[in-house]
């Protein structure tokens, strides 16, 4: 008897290819998707590099060397940000100008950069200048999506300055030795081209004994060589120390700055500042992304569930009865679509209202953008669900197809895994899903705090999809009449 029951199970499975797909093929598909995201399988066979953008062309020797240093790092992919428009260039009096901020903002929104390096207008020519002049400040502008990038690039820049300072100290030591030899010989100290020291900036009266202006070797070692400045990363600030939290970009900023600032001697040499403009004015923007991701995933499922009522009605004959009534096919489809659309809008709104109440995502501040994205997303998912229901011949078929499609779309589209951890290729593939466009839109609204006008592309794609799928639904819906 047990064998007979087992045989029934086997026969039913064998006679239902879709169930077979769900049971055996789906796990493989999902494994492949996740493997592709987290491995090199889809990302063109090479390790994913951190994409570092330069906000301006290096104008000084030190800046050029820093750029070359970063360029030569195999884990980084450096490129300059797209040039400013002439009008913007005029407006940009300095690098801290609004035009530059706009340029950075645009670059961040493009999603092509993990981090942007911004150097001040008066970046020193050499590292030695920084001792007497203002600090050599390197600003890293992050959108907060990839805290690992911040930690890594900070570490690399620290390494650069460490090398430069080590070279500087070495030269100073050489000069000291030469100076002492010169003193003993009674000749002035030889100058090393390109290498300045504090003594070079002494007043003209320095014609006197050079040794008087030179720091004692012990002072140099104490002041520079043995100082914590030379440690690329503090013990408590490593990319893997746990202080760099993936979920809290502000921590990265404050911690990086604080760590570097706590050392008074660093201020005389160099400083790395991490800026996260998006985190300055909002409390929990990342939560909005999670809310959107989960909302879109469930929206797709619930929309498909509602659209499946068409198949139920067709199977029970209710659809025939309605078609014979005063309501035409177009009205039926419109009514169903509208119902799914309204349900979708409500579903997303409830999700965001909860996020606002509990996590303070500033829904009111971004209300216009939220409305635009929510209606666009709900429209697209409603058409998608209606189209699926029209194509599928039975509810069980729809269930199987929708599970495969929706989970795949959600996996590559960013509802399950943040899109910033994906390779570029994977991100491109993700663009074939509603999730990716919806999440990009919500990201612009809540994370980048963009104006609703910046959502043109996302809205066009989502509404365009809604229109095309709606049209396909209508064209294929003739089958309801044909029976």
């Amino acid at each position, binding site marked *: 008897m047990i064998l007979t029951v087992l045989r029934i199970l086997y026969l039913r499975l064998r006679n239902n290819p879709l169930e077979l797909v769900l049971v055996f093929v789906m796990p493989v598909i999902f494994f492949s998707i996740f493997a592709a995201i987290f491995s090199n399988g889809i990302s063109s066979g090479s390790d994913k590099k951190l994409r570092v953008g330069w906000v301006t062309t290096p104008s000084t020797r030190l800046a050029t060397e820093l750029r070359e240093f970063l360029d030569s790092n195999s884990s980084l992919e450096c490129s300059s940000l797209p040039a400013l428009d002439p009008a913007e260039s005029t407006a940009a009096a300095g690098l801290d100008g609004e035009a530059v901020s706009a340029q950075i903002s645009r670059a961040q929104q493009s999603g092509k950069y993990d981090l942007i390096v911004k150097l001040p207008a008066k970046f020193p020519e050499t590292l030695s200048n920084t001792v007497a002049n203002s600090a050599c400040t390197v600003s890293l502008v992050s959108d907060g999506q990839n805290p690992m990038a911040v930690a890594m690039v900070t570490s690399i820049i620290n390494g650069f300055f460490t090398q430069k300072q080590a070279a500087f100290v070495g030269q100073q030591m050489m000069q000291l030795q030469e100076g002492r030899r010169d003193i003993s010989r009674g000749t002035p100290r030889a100058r090393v081209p390109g290498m300045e020291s504090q003594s070079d900036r002494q007043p003209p009266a320095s014609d006197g004994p050079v040794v008087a202006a030179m720091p004692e070797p012990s002072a140099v070692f104490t002041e520079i060589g043995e100082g914590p400045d030379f440690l690329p990363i503090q013990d408590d600030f490593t990319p893997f120390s746990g202080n760099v939290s993936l979920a809290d970009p502000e921590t990265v900023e404050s911690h990086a700055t604080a760590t570097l600032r706590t050392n008074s001697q660093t201020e005389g040499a160099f400083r790395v500042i991490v800026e996260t403009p998006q985190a300055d004015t909002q409390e929990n923007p990342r939560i909005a992304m999670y809310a959107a991701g989960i909302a879109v995933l469930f929206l797709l499922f619930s929309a498909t569930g509602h659209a499946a009522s068409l198949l139920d009605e067709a*199977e*029970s*004959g*209710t659809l*025939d*009865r*309605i*078609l*014979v*009534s*005063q*309501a035409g096919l177009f009205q039926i489809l419109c009514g169903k679509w509208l119902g799914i659309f309204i349900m979708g809008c409500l579903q997303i709104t409830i999700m965001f209202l909860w996020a606002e109440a509990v996590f303070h995502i500033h829904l009111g501040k971004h209300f216009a953008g939220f409305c635009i994205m929510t209606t666009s997303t709900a429209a697209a998912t409603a058409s998608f669900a209606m189209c699926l229901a029209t194509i599928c011949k039975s509810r069980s078929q729809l269930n199987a197809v929708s599970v495969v499609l929706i989970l795949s779309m959600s996996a590559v589209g960013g509802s399950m895994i943040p899109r910033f951890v994906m390779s570029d290729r994977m991100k491109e593939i993700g663009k074939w899903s509603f999730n990716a466009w919806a999440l990009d839109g919500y990201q612009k609204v809540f994370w980048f705090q963009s104006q609703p006008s910046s959502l043109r592309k996302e809205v066009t794609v989502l509404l365009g999809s809604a229109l095309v799928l709606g049209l396909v639904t209508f064209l294929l819906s003739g089958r309801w*009449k*044909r*029976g």
Partner: protein
Amino acid sequence: MTEENTATGTPILTLDNVRKTYRKRDALQGISLQLFPGELLGLFGPNGAGKTTMIRCISGLLKPDSGTITRHSLSTSSVAESNVRLGLVPQNLAIYPDLTVLQNLEVFGRLEGVTRRVLKERIKEVLEWAALSDRIHSLARTLSGGMQRRLNIACSVLHRPQILLLDEPTVGVDPQSRERIYSMLEELTSQGSALLLTTHQLDEVETRCDRIVVMDHGLIVAQGTLAELVQLTVGCPHRVTLRFDLPCKWRLPRFAFDQPRTSATCMMQSMQELPVVLAVLQKIDQQPSHIDVRSLGLQDVFLELTGRSLRE
């Protein structure tokens, strides 16, 4: 439920040489028939005969490849043909199981274009008509099979259709519910509605339908009243079988004997012929030990017309 239509000699629905090829099969091969107001027409045929295709064509769900289907307006006012109200009762329970009885009636009434004010009154009437007044707030899925069937029909009559198409409306219901359903249908016909009913229940067609249409292979193979069909197919309505203990030594006119002549069968036009035959047999001392009289019905007509081979 009052209705302006009354039984007249003018058909309310006419099908003229309707053809339909469906899924590479000739589902309808030139169907012509008429349906009259106040008539209950039984559409009868084996599976795959084309009954459902015909109903779908009449209801407008399918467009015939050729031929015409005309709904005639009987109203004295100039009502367009397309305004002849039509209702469909699908074979399955075409109601929303997760809505209450009242909610089902409301939504289907609205879909039929009945205004809210009128609908309220119609629902009240229909609930009484379908004997569902005490269950108006029950979810449809909690009703018994018979109640669900009655609700299924009730949802189709809220707009008072002049033509009602019923596709096996009594499948799976107990005799009491079936009786109630036919009472409901009779009420409709008495009010002038024309009903086209498909069913496999022979007794229903025999006893309830005014006229019967037998379909096979997409064709109407016979139509008329039961008596007409019997006459048309098997000739006489009664079959008399006489059994003898010993082989009969006599030849009896019109009787067919088997071998070894212990059984004889005769088709009779009227049962009044039987006493005459029995008197003759008594006279010749050949009295039968057993007499079997069977009135021929639709089953015989049907098998005569469509054969005994299985379909589909």
